């Protein structure tokens, strides 16, 4: 009896840690998605493609140079630039036409998925982590747990705090907050809002790219991940509130925990809980937990 109880607690701890690490990954992907939506009202349906592109670039660069950090940096820069190019070359021409922009980004994601399939094929890759973190560390109750997954939680915290500081303590953040409130008024005060848009798109896309490298290191990279992380980002920001970074954190936590506990304890219904949460939030608070009424 005692042994059984002991095993259950250990399982519970591991599942909880798995949930937290998945939440961390969801948060990093969704924060960029939410940042872009908050300012520009663009539902970027190509956000998952940016994630996957980041993962592949991270793979290539870290394989070629042997440096994982260089892989992260390359993914952030290249995917950030890809996001900026998407805004300049396509989305800026349909400013304010939300539906058209969403459709255009769906088109981009389809093309991007095929181009990436042609380049990297259909097999799964794993990005090699630095030796120091590819180990197991002792954790109370859970026993041993992968260092890399714990590191993921640290990454999410660093990115979350970094984003908060940027939004609340810098001039760029001030411009972004003012733009979220009333972008036309901001422009009438002499601020080059189109340029701010490009910058924010680059930041949001860069975050997706970084998430791709982290996700591809801790989990794996393969075609189809783009749709998976787009879907998770959508659910996370619908639950947490479009445009809110703290909302993305809470949404990521709720969605990832529901998914992980659901799959561990009631495998048959695992996927249902995520959508149950979304339906409940939409019924009670359609703007999301921390979202503002439109």
């Amino acid at each position: 009896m005692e042994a059984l109880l002991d095993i259950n607690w250990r399982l519970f701890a591991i599942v909880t840690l798995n949930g937290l690490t998945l939440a961390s990954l969801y948060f990093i992907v969704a924060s960029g998605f939410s940042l872009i939506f908050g300012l520009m009202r663009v539902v970027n349906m190509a956000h998952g493609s940016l994630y996957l592109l980041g993962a592949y670039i991270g793979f290539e660069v870290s394989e070629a140079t042997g440096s994982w950090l260089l892989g992260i940096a390359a993914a952030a820069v290249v995917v950030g630039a890809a996001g900026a190019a998407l805004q300049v070359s396509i989305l800026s021409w349909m400013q304010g036409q939300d539906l058209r922009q969403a459709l255009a980004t769906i088109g981009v994601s389809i093309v991007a998925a095929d181009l990436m399939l042609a380049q990297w094929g259909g097999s799964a890759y794993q990005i090699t982590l630095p030796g120091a973190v590819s180990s197991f560390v002792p954790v109370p109750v859970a026993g041993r747990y992968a260092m890399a997954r714990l590191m993921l939680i640290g990454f999410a915290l660093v990115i979350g705090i970094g984003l908060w500081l940027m939004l609340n303590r810098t001039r760029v953040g001030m411009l972004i907050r003012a733009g979220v409130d009333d972008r036309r008024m901001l422009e009438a005060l002499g601020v080059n809002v189109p340029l701010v848009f490009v910058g924010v798109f680059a930041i949001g896309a860069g975050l997706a790219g970084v998430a791709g490298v982290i996700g591809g290191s801790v989990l794996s990279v393969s075609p189809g991940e783009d749709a998976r992380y787009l879907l998770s980002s959508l659910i996370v920001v619908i639950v947490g509130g479009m445009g809110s970074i703290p909302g993305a954190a809470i949404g990521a936590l709720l969605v990832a925990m529901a998914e992980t506990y659901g799959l561990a304890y009631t495998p048959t219904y695992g996927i249902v809980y995520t959508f149950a949460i979304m339906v409940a939030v939409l019924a009670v608070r359609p703007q999301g937990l921390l979202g503002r009424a439109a």
Partner: protein
Amino acid sequence: MASDPLLSVDGLHVYYGSSHVLHGVTLETGTAPLSIVGRNGMGKTTLCQAIMGLVPSSGGEVRLGGERISGRRAFKVARAGIGYVPQGRRVFRSLSVDEHLRLVGKPDGEWTVERIYGTFPRLAERRRNGGAALSGGEQQMLAISRALLLNPRLLVMDEPTEGLAPVIVEHVVEVLREIGRSGVGLLLVEQNLTVATEVSDRIMVMMNGEIALETDAATLLNDRALRNRYLGVSAEA
């Protein structure tokens, strides 16, 4: 060479879809304040937005000091020297008073953040408060201040006294008169005839998307028939 007027609007047309809102508005103003009055829905707000480049015009042009500004994006119009105080004030609810001012303010120039705090002590007291936490009068002071910090040549103000308590309206009128005296041009759109006539001598009446009448404050105040005809009100105060 004749000097160019500060602002000249020539035959300005604006459509919202198929509805023709501005029917060739033509006006000129210098550094003396000019008020535009008119009933609701006559196109006054659209005129302000078209001057600012916030709505596209489909004909005619706007010049600031002789330089063509119509067709430019709003931020370029603002940088060319027009400060905009919009209807409803539109302060940013996520920004504190201090952030509003630092967003626009530059260390040099005639108007600095410190000078604003000196001119509006109430804003200095509330500098840490968020935009949404301010009273209507405070929001109006803030909206005027952030426009002044651009060090504009012309201020375009859309109903700055709308929804304010009478004692606050008096204060706003004082501020507007002071701005008018400081050499900054002022284009004031108002529904409140008393405010318009206190701020400027020169008054234009807008009707159905056109300037229907140009007159002066005394004439408009003394001629009840004129007011009835153009404004459909006997006098608002």
